[in-house]
């Protein structure tokens, strides 16, 4: 009997914990949740752009070989894509959030384009231009990060 | 269940069964069996080691001798609740391998 009683307690605790998790995951996001999400997205985009810029610079200096650059760009592009996807997936719950999204969205778009430019650049001149653009994006994203943190 | 009683005993049936004293109070659970070689060369059970805690067996700390670093010694004592004892087999007249009731205790 004692064993069964303990089992009931454990089962109840498990169900409660699970319900708590489910509630936490399914409740509509409020302003502070959205703020955290935007912050994460900005950070991901910043890192991806910075990675792209870093590889581009090394490519210009002849410090990396082709396959490495290809897979590093691919990683960065994938991260940038997921950041943009997350931004469109979640609707901003209030006015402040909307303003945040509207500030970050165009930068993400530009950074994604520049990342693509760098990854597909066929000559040094184009690569240099793309890297310069990316570095500009990185600075803008870093400014936003500092402001929002 | 007569066939059950016909089947030979296994050590696992005895371990963790309760040992009671004459008044029916639980002394503890069997943690180990102490054997001695008899004249025919068989390892016969001489006594049972009982512990009061719920853990029958804890890393060998139910043995009498002191081992282990201080920290573990304390931990083991706490879990075993310090009460380990030894009951000679002949004081367990109606011993039977029943997990739930345990052998009726010594006089």
């Amino acid at each position, binding site marked *: 009997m004692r064993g069964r009683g303990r089992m009931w307690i454990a089962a109840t605790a498990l169900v409660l914990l699970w319900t708590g998790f489910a509630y936490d995951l399914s409740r509509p996001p409020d302003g502070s949740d959205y703020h955290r999400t935007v912050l994460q997205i900005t950070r991901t985009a910043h890192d991806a752009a910075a990675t792209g810029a870093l590889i581009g610079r*090394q490519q210009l200096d002849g410090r990396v070989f082709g396959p*490495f650059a290809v897979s590093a760009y691919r990683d960065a592009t994938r991260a940038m894509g997921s950041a943009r996807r997350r931004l469109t997936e979640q609707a901003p719950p209030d006015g402040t959030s909307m303003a945040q999204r509207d500030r970050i969205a165009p930068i993400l778009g530009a950074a994604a384009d520049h990342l693509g430019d760098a990854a597909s650049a066929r000559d040094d001149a184009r690569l240099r231009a793309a890297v310069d653009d990316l570095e500009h994006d990185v600075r803008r994203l870093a400014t936003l990060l500092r402001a929002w943190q | 269940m007569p066939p059950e009683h016909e089947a030979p005993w296994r050590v696992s049936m005895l371990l963790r069964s309760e040992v009671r004293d004459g008044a029916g109070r639980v002394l503890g659970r069997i943690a180990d069996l102490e054997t001695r070689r008899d004249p025919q060369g068989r390892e016969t059970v001489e006594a049972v080691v009982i512990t009061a805690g719920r853990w029958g067996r804890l890393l060998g700390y139910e043995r009498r001798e002191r081992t282990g*670093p201080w920290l573990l010694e304390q931990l083991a004592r706490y879990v075993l609740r310090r009460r380990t004892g030894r009951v000679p087999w002949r004081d367990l007249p109606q011993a039977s391998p029943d997990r739930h009731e345990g052998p009726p205790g010594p006089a």
Partner: protein
Amino acid sequence: MKRVLSIALGILTAIGGFVDIGDIVANSEAGARFGVAHAWVLAVGVVGICSYAEMSGRVSAVSGRAVFDLVRERLGPRVALANLAGSLLVTVLTLGAELGGVGLALQLASSVDYLLWVPVVAVVLWVALWRVKFSMLENVFGLTGLVLIVFVVAFLRLRPDTGALWHQATDPGPPAGEDWGTYWFFAVALFASALTPYEVFFFSSGAVEEQWTAKDLRTARFNVFLGFPLGGLLAFAIMLSSATVFGPRQMSVDTLAQVAMPTALALGKLGLAAAILGFFAATFGAAMETGLSTGYTVAQYFGWDWGKLRRPRDAARFHTVLIIGIVVGVALLMTTIDPIQLTEYTLVFSAVALPLTYLPILVVANDRDYLGDRVNGRLANSVGSVYLIVVVAAAVAAIPLMLITRMGGG
């Protein structure tokens, strides 16, 4: 002369073999986000693995019993079965992470997606465990792993701001923009990366299989006490170079390409190639060890025949477990989970599982029935007891920290 050579070989192999995907990922990530504020954790981890490996090596050499043998004996079949389930889960997760690491290293060298590499790597791994002379392979990969020294060279070439690094290391804590929760989450991950259970399964099983004696024990102590700290130095170099390159740029690390970047920055193509080769050797070597460890733990629990020196048909159950372990590891990666993320989870769970094997070893290392006068001395017991507290604290804290910090994501 030959003996000196074999000792040197052992030490070098231990250095190269110390680092695996967990060390690579944890050190690089922590370095980027926290500088060297976790340097002390690495030191604590290295001392821990030294004491743990020394104890289990001694127990196995003197008693002829490997770690999981003793776990079953001391904990009984039920608790040990739960223990086996936990340890096996962590070992298979680690195997998956290492296989993913090999795949990623090959991707960096070839630009072919790692998912295409993983099945190939798995088959090569299985063939290696099935019939190749294992000690030879172990030495080859251990020695090749030594090229990770490139991170030391890269760090020195990067002209680091040593004053700032020294300040971070001596006054540890989260920098601006990070919180204490994340700091401790990374501390647990780093600790777990240095003190992985599979290393000890592998080490003690090797001791039993190669029938170590007291003389071998002395050699093994050399390997442990020199090899592991020097291996830890390689891990530290990864942290340092990551801190130097990514710290000022406020970047975090989440891909293997980023981990390798400092070597390219400092040393160009050659340095980059060395880093990638080092990743490959370190992860493949660790994949062999974790693969074998899945078989060791199960076989030792049930008392089956096991070992890398046995003919497969004489240890059919052991080899079947190995195959299943590798297949599950591959299946894990085929869910397309990011291997770096898998590594992070693996570190959390190995922190949770560590006390399960640490405790029985500490107990047996004190048992005179087993070790006679070779039981732990006062120093070994003081260190062992302190680490018991540390290991339990890390295990208790790991999951809550993971949930609170959302895998350190903030």
